[in-house]
């Protein structure tokens, strides 16, 4: 097979970058790209010197991506979570301008021995699903228990419910190329019913779902991945996203294929010290659907533009787009407070 020029170039960047970090010559072995995240390129590799071998991960911007976010912000969120003892990869080096890694990105230590389920994986956790669910929602609760510092607010977007809705509404306006009757109607209702904050602002992961949780064969949560959408905001956003049926692996009555909703909420409340704002759950559930639609509409725009050949972009613009279009329309036709 012909060598991948992207991989060859990246390996050279990594050898130099890690070599400087370690102050010794380094060679790169086992460089391979993770599949599924068209928003960023994520590669694992072994960095090898005369005295050490370490499994590392590099995450950097591709030519075009799903979501316009900052690697520096992502690195900050990851470092903050890791330092606070939340299961997350250890961040090692930020290259904010891309001068070392070929594109803005960062290095982190690989978390071995785990797996995050694919979207279509049926019953991904099996007999250990309850343990995974308790640990997953406890980890999320620990994140939400942290008090955002001045450094957090300087490094991350600060967006309450109205701010997040405005962000996604603008994104949709930028990327939509056809009438979006479901999204338009949902945003209209959301704008008219923005809830008060559920509590003090929290560090919000922004993409907390089964596919971003690394789990071992015993059901233990090893790491929360993909912090690129992290921000300071309302933790209800993370709960609603995690509970969205798109990430439920088709298992009715369970959240993220793990626990019944009340058990997941209980694990989160115990760990976070917060209470779920039950009066605003409907708003955040609908918001989660609109957020999804915004991401999938942006993905469709990038697939259409053709700068990034990753088929995940086209996939996102087709399958989850139609899923969330149907889910949002169903909620608004069948459930209170809309129906």
């Amino acid at each position, binding site marked *: 097979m012909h060598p991948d020029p992207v991989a060859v170039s990246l390996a050279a960047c990594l050898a130099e970058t890690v070599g400087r970090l370690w102050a010794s010559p380094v060679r790169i072995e086992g460089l391979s790209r993770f599949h599924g995240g068209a928003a960023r390129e994520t590669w694992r590799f072994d960095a090898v010197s005369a005295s050490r071998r370490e499994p590392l991960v590099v995450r950097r911007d591709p030519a075009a991506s799903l979501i316009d976010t900052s690697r520096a912000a992502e690195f900050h969120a990851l470092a903050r979570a890791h330092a606070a003892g939340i299961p997350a990869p250890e961040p090692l080096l930020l290259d904010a301008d891309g001068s070392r890694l070929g594109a803005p990105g960062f290095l982190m230590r690989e978390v071995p021995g785990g797996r995050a389920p694919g979207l279509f994986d*049926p019953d991904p956790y099996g007999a250990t699903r309850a343990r995974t669910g308790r640990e997953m929602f406890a980890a999320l609760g620990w994140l939400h228990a942290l008090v955002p510092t001045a450094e957090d607010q300087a490094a991350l977007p600060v967006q309450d419910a109205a701010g997040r809705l405005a962000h996604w509404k603008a994104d949709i306006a930028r990327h939509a190329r*056809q009438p979006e009757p479901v999204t*338009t*109607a949902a945003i209209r*209702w959301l704008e008219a019913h923005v809830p008060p904050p559920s509590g003090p602002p929290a560090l919000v992961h922004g993409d907390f779902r089964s596919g971003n949780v690394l789990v071992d064969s015993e059901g233990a949560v090893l790491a929360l991945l993909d912090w690129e959408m992290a921000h300071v905001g309302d933790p209800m956003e993370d709960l609603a996203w995690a509970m969205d049926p798109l990430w439920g692996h088709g298992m009715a009555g369970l959240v993220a294929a793990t626990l019944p909703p009340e058990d997941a909420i209980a694990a989160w409340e115990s760990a976070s010290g917060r209470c779920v704002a039950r009066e605003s759950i409907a708003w955040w559930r609908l918001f989660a659907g609109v957020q999804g639609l915004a991401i999938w509409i942006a993905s469709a725009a990038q697939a259409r533009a053709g700068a990034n050949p990753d088929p995940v972009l086209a996939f996102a613009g*087709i399958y989850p787009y139609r*899923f969330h279009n*149907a889910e949002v*329309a169903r909620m*608004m036709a069948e459930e209170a407070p809309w129906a």
Partner: protein
Amino acid sequence: MGLTLAESLAALALSQGALVAPALGESYAGKSAATIAALLAMLAADAASRPAREAAIASRLERLLSDAGIDCPPPEAPDRLPRLWAAFIDLHAGADVEDPALARACRLLLRDWTAGERLVPPLPPPDA
């Protein structure tokens, strides 16, 4: 007669899933190939029913808009469906403010239309 669009997509899905993806294994390229196979399979099923679904929703939109006294683009208009949707969006926005029964009818239309647009994920490959 050659293959229809739906048949073409189904055939390509089979080739991609049976030949290309397995050859590339669990690599990034292999998983990308599997993603393409899954997409082709879903689009094949979608293509088979698309003309009927588009005709049905266009007809339902036209009835709703006509009942509300809104002129609809002629059947031969090339961008008829997007124009019908644009008119529907405006109708729905107004109904949300002043006509609960019409607003409910709009929501039911959206529910029924999007339910028919949903794609069925491909079955996971059988264990070897």
